[in-house]
C-alpha cells in the first residue's frame, strides 16, 4: 500500500517537474524543476531497493550536474526568460504523444518472464551497495574503467573547448599571418 502511494506520488511529482522543465520559459525554473525531478527519481530508486543508485543519482545529478548547469547558466546569462519560437507545436505533441501512446500500449501488458533468471541476483541479507560493489568490480570492471576513460575524455573535452586557446582560430588564419607574426 505504502508502495503504491509512494509510487503514485512520486510519479505525479516527477511528471509535473519534468513537464515544467520542458515547457518553462524561465531557465532557472526549468533547472530547478529538473533538479527536483531528479530527486524524485532517486526516490524511485530507493523505493526499488536500489539504494546505491539513489545516492549516486542525488550526488551526481543534483550535486555535480546541476552545479555545472548552474555554472553554465550564469555564463550564458540565461537567468532571464528564454525566447523560443517553437515552430509547429502541434507536431511536437503529435510526435511525442504518439510515441508515448505506442510505448504505453506496448508496455502495459505484463511481460512473460518464465525463462528469465537473474544473473546477479539480489540476495537476502546483503545490502544493496555491497552487492552492487561486488558486481561492479568484477563483472563490470571493464565498463567501469572505460567509463573512467570516458569521463577523462569529457574532462579533456571540456577543458580544451572552454579554454582560451580556442579564442583564436589557427584554422581560419591564412598562412601569411603566421609569417607576419613571426617577423614581429
Amino acid at each position, binding site marked *: 500500500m505504502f508502495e503504491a502511494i509512494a509510487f503514485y506520488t512520486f510519479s505525479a511529482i516527477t511528471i509535473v517537474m519534468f513537464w515544467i522543465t520542458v515547457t518553462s520559459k524561465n531557465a532557472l525554473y526549468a533547472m530547478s524543476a529538473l533538479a527536483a525531478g531528479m530527486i524524485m527519481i532517486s526516490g524511485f530508486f530507493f523505493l526499488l531497493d536500489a539504494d546505491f543508485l539513489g545516492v549516486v543519482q542525488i550526488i551526481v545529478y543534483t550535486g555535480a550536474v546541476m552545479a555545472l548547469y548552474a555554472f553554465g547558466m550564469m555564463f550564458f546569462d540565461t537567468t532571464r526568460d528564454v525566447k523560443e519560437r517553437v515552430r509547429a507545436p502541434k507536431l511536437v505533441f503529435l510526435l511525442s504523444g504518439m510515441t508515448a501512446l*505506442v*510505448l504505453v500500449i*506496448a*508496455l502495459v*501488458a505484463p*511481460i*512473460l*518472464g*518464465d*525463462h*528469465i*533468471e*537473474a*544473473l546477479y541476483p539480489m540476495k537476502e*541479507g*546483503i545490502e544493496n551497495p*555491497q*552487492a552492487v560493489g*561486488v558486481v561492479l568490480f*568484477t*563483472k*563490470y*570492471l*571493464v*565498463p567501469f574503467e*572505460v*567509463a573512467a*576513460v*570516458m569521463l*577523462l*575524455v*569529457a574532462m*579533456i*573535452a571540456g577543458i*580544451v*573547448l572552454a579554454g582560451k*586557446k*580556442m579564442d583564436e*582560430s*589557427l*584554422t*581560419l*588564419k*591564412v*598562412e601569411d599571418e*603566421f609569417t607576419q607574426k613571426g617577423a614581429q
Partner: protein
Amino acid sequence: MLEPISVSLETLNLSTLAPMLVAIVGGLGILVVDLIKKDLDKTLYVMLSILVLFVDLGAVIGQQVGDRGFFDVMLIDGLAVIGQVVILVASMLFIPLALTSKRFHEFSYPEFFALFLFMVAGFQFMVASDNLILIFVGLETASLALYTLIALHNRDKAFEAAIKYFVMGALAAGFYVMGSMIFYAVSGSVELYKIAEVLKADDYANLPVLLIGVAFMIAALGFKLSMVPFHTWTPDVYEGASASLAGYMSVVPKIAGFVVAMRIFGFLIQADVVWLRDVLYAAVVITMTLANIMALVQHDVKRMLAFSSISHAGFVMAAIMIGTTQANSALFLYWILFLFTNLGAFAMLWVSRHKASIWHERYDHPYEKFSGMISIMPVGAVIMALFMLSLAGVPPFSLFWGKLYVMSAAVNADYIGLAIIMAINSAISAYYYLKLIVYMFLRAPEQNDGTVYVQNASKPLQTIIGFSAFLTVFAVFAVEPMLQIITAYVQASGF
C-alpha cells in the same frame, strides 16, 4: 554475507583487453609527454599515435578468436577482430593526414591525439563486446571524443557540426538506453548471447514488446549508421568537420556501428524475425535511394561525398538484413574497400583545402573548384577520377568488388529485387560522381594556377593518397585473400 571473491587471472583472459589498453595508455602517454614538455611539434604526436596504433594492431592480430574475457564482458570473435583491424588501419591512414603543410587548429593540441586514441579505444570496445553496457560506454567514449575532435577544427561550421552531432547523439543515446531497457525487460539480461538464449527459450513470446526495443535499437544504430531518417546530421557534420576527419567519420564509426548492428540484429534475423527483416529492407532501400537523389543536387563535393557515404552505408546495411555468411563477409569486404577509396577521396579534398573561401562563400570544395583540373594537375585529376569511378562501382576499381559481392549475397539469399534496386541506385549514384569527373576533365579551368590543388599537400598526404589509389586500382588482387580471411573470421563467429 557475501562470499569472498576469487578470480583467477587466467579466466580473466587479460589479452582480450590488451589492444584497448594499448590505445588508452598511448593516449595517456601523449598527455604525459605534453605535461613534461609543452609545445612539441605535431609530427611527434602523429608518429607516436601511429606507433601506438601499430602496437594496438599487433595486439589485435595476436588475439585468439573465440575468446571471451573479463567475466565474459569482452568478446573476441571474428567480427571483433576484423572490426578492430579495419578501425585501426583506417586510423593509421587517417592520423598522418594531420601532417598538412597548412596549419590547422586541431593539430596544435596534443590533446587532439590523446582524444583520438581514446576514441579508437572506444570504438574497439564497441566492437569487442556483446554486452550492451560496454557497447554503450564504448560508444559514448568514442562519440564524446569525436564531438570534440570536430569542434577542435575551430571555425563556426565546425562548432555547428559538433553541436548538431552532439545533440542528436544525445537523443540517439536516449534511444539506445530505452532499447536496452526493453531488451533487458524481456530477457533479464544485457548480454546479447544471453538475450538470444532467453528469447529462444521463450520462443519469442514477448515479441511485440521486443519489437519496440528493436525499434529503439534501429533508431539508435540508425543514427550511427546514418540511416534515413536518422541521417540528417551526416552532411552537415561532414561539411563542418575537416575533410580528413569527415573521411574518417565516414568509415570508422560506421564499421563499429555495423559490427554492433550485426550482433544485435544478427541473431534476430537468424531467428527469422520477419518484422525486422522487412523493416530493415525498407530502411535500406530508402536510405540508399534518398541519399542518392539528394546527393545529385549538391554543389559541394564534400557534401556530395557525405550523401554518397550515407548511400553506401545503406548499401551495406542490406548485408546485415540479408544476414547470410556471404552477406556478412561482403559487408566487411565492402567496407575495407570503401575505406581506402573514400578516405582517399576525402584526402584529395583535404589536400586541396584552402583557408580562404576563394570559390564559394560557404563551401570549401564546390564543384567549380575542380574545373579543368586535368590541365592543371593531371595526376591529381586522374587519381580523383579513379576514386570517383571506384565509388560509382565501375569495375575493376575497388568498390566494384564490394558491390559485386554484396549484390551477389542478395541474389543468393533470394533478394533479387533488392539486387536490382542496388543496381539502379548504383546507376543513379554514377551521375554525381560523374559530375565531378565532368568538372575535372571536361571543363576549362577557372583559375589557372598550379598550386590551387596542392595547397595542403605534403609528402605524407601524397603518400597516403597514392597508397589509396594503388589499392583502389589493384583491388582485384586483394579481393581473394581478403575474402578468405574475412569469411573465415565471419564464419568463426557464427554469422
